């Protein structure tokens, strides 16, 4: 029955707020699915949405009552023209003041109990045995994603199975970042020298967007994050592919040379090759990712070439330097990286 009410309320909110908002705000291009905290698709986000509705309704109630009285007062008690007397002077009233002190206290007690319960329910939820563990490391300005159990290292694009809890261990390599995928979970900071955890339990497959939400420097705005909620089969296949070492395709050996001869290899790791840098994202399966530069641009050969030529063009403030490669080298290295499926 409550869920009924909740659903109803939610329908109203979604209908009024979002259906009006989303299409209108589709600015120039189609709106991607994505970051609406009122469309939760995962356990903690859903529970937070419930709390949000409760708090929102109570606050709306307070606003309507207090705002309404104020509106009434300023209309009703206007000074009429020609009225030259002072109104009766009232200095206070113990009873009235008592009432409007106590009622808010009661409301606060309710709000507090609801929040406190959810804090513990989310923060202290024990990790179930059958869950995925991910270590997520925030870097200026990208995400390092590790699946310790599967021995996978990747970047910026996280794959998780649907209907299964995933637990994140959040770290930072430099400054404070914050992990936020609104439709899956609230945010938790990635802090150097400090380990945080958070978890999600997605209920729907699909792509969910997120974004670093603690200011971390010039590239902060482009520190995006993508979470793919896969069916179990898709997830398994993805894991399988990621676990393989990098593809060795003799056709692109020239590009491999360029990569290894330049400083690329000092910053990037490609498993199965001498490149073992840790400063930048792991490129072992770069071509299997949909985007470059932590969600900045789509991963197309053209974009990739442009990225290597001048990363700053797509992502001002990026910590990867433009490597001053000539056109030939660019083509070669692009071809090589494109082969890393």
């Amino acid at each position, binding site marked *: 029955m409550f869920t009924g009410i909740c659903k109803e309320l939610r329908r109203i909110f979604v209908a009024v707020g979002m259906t009006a908002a989303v299409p209108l705000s589709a600015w120039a291009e189609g709106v991607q699915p994505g970051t609406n905290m009122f469309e939760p698709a995962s356990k903690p986000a859903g529970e937070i949405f419930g709390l949000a509705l409760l708090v929102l309704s109570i606050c709306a109630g307070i606003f309507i009552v207090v705002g309404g009285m104020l509106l009434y007062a300023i209309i009703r008690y206007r000074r009429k023209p020609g009225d030259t007397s002072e109104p009766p002077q009232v200095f206070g009233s113990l009873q009235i003041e008592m009432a409007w002190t106590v009622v808010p206290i009661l409301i606060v007690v309710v709000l507090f109990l609801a929040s406190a319960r959810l804090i513990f329910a989310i923060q202290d939820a024990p990790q179930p045995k059958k869950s995925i563990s991910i270590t997520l490391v925030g870097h200026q300005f990208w995400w390092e994603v590790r699946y310790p159990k599967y021995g996978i290292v990747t970047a910026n694009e996280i794959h998780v199975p649907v209907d299964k809890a995933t637990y994140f261990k959040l770290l930072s390599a430099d400054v404070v970042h914050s992990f936020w995928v609104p439709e899956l979970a609230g*945010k938790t900071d990635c802090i150097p020298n400090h380990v945080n955890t958070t978890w999600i339990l997605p209920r729907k497959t699909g792509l969910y967007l997120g974004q670093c939400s603690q200011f971390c420097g010039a590239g902060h705005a482009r520190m995006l994050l993508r979470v793919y909620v896969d069916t179990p089969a898709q997830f398994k296949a993805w894991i399988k592919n990621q676990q393989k070492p990098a593809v060795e395709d003799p056709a692109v050996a020239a590009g491999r040379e360029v990569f290894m001869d330049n400083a690329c290899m000092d910053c990037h790791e490609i498993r199965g090759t001498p490149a073992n840098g840790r400063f930048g994202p792991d490129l072992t399966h770069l071509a299997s990712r949909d985007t470059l530069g932590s969600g900045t641009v789509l991963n197309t050969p053209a974009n990739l070439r442009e990225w290597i030529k001048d990363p700053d063009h797509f992502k001002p403030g990026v910590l990867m330097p433009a490597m001053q490669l000539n056109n030939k080298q660019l083509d070669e290295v692009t071809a090589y990286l494109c082969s890393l499926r």
Partner: protein
Amino acid sequence: MADQTLPIGGVVDVTELKAPKQTFLEWLAEWFITVDHKKLGILYVVYAMVFLLIGGLEALVIRLQLAIPNNHLVSPQIYDELFTMHGTTMVFIMGMPILVGLANYIVPLQIGARDMAFPRLNAFSFWMTAFGGLLMYYSYIGGFGLYGVGTAPDFGWFAYAPLTSPAFSPGRAPDYWAVALIVMGWGSLGAGVNIITTTLTMRCKGMTLMRMPLFTWLMLVVSFLMVIAIPCLTAAQGMLMIDRYIGGHFFDTQAGGSAILWMHFFWIFGHPEVYILALPAFGLASEIIPVFSRKAIFGYPAMVAASVGIGFLSFGVWAHHMFTVGMSGPTNTFFVIASMLVGIPTGIKIFNWLATIWGGKIWFATPMLFSIAFIFQFLVGGLTGVMLAAAPWDWQLHNSYFVVAHFHYILVGAIVFMVFAAIYYWFPKVTGKMLDERLGKLHFWLFLIGFHLTFDFMHIPGILGMPRHIYTYMPSRGWGMWNMIETVGAFVQAIAVLVLVFNIIVSLRSGKEAGNDPWDAWTLEWATTSPPPAYNFAVDPVVKSRRPLWDLKHPEDPDWKYE
């Protein structure tokens, strides 16, 4: 019937102001060497107004940059400097000085004193504030930074470590930020000490603490907050400078230092700071609303108790800015309840203003219009604050545009609105001229519309997942339209502010003569000439109630009989 001993004794209208002949240079020099609380008050306010324009200009550029997705008007580095300087300017160089300035002018008059307790310290405090602000802005031109565009601070107004450490901010930016704020901090500390001492030791005869006008009361509370909170920031910035200049490790995460410690230190200061800005606005409202409702303030003792209560509570809620840093469950719960409890004394205040209006005869002069809008907007801003205080929801809302909307609703919708109200209300006292009412109403409506266009619509992208501090976003996120509306609103606000500036200039030259008491008000500052003489009152006034001028005006019905 009429009592023979009048409640207010020697308030005296004095001789004509002697108008000594001065050259322009002498006149100018006097502003630099003055120790008169009124002149210093004016200096504070004018200085702050200039920075309101500058900070507003920065906001306009921010809004222009965000108006459409993938905009390239400014580079991310410049954008980062813009919002950092905007926040820092508005809070430290505009907000605090303008409120301290109003207090400087009004408090001694309201308590019937000749001057502040320490007039020279007062001058010193102002100049520290002024030079600190100038030093902060010198960062735009002084020295070469990382990107060769000056070294204006670019890490947000809360300057989270370790982004400010030498490794991540190799330029001079954090140094300008820290040093300028330390300098200004001394100014604020001096002002706090001065206001506390003034209110505690300089009240005229008969003005017991429970008869003090509410603005003065709130400035007393605010001064205590300043005296306690500002040194906390100074200490944290001192540690930052130790780290940067002599190799300390306070916030050096490589050497075991803690980023979270900085957050705690900043917000231990930062939360009281927002009440330092809000409480004077409450005080202004508590002066203006009764006068224009023609009624005594409802529940004066409760108002005082609530202010003191907010003051105390404000030191116990700082970590609500840190719900996402991974504090333990009990800690989070504690800060939830503490933050929500602030709503109770604050609610008492809102209800008391409402009850003051209730049954009154409202006179919709410009100050009152701003005050009514203030109550509405503060109500909304407070309620969104309560939403943020519900920690789990804050895990979603934190650092989103919802937060930006929350605090602008209070910082602009409440504080700036009340500052404007105060300008219209006390301008006649300060200059002897009325501000033009028609321009005033135009200013009000424009600013109201602009404000709501900008900040109402900011909540929505917040809910839709738009984080703050981003210099741009992609079209596909669906935030574009909201941001466009906000930008339009910001420009409407800018026009409104220009109307105010125009109004001030016009009214100074040819405004209506104000007389001593244009609003038919009740506190002591209206019992002297406009503008008041250097010594405020020729004879020390004596009061018998909270509304000394009411007693004079209604001898058959004085307050003191009741109180």
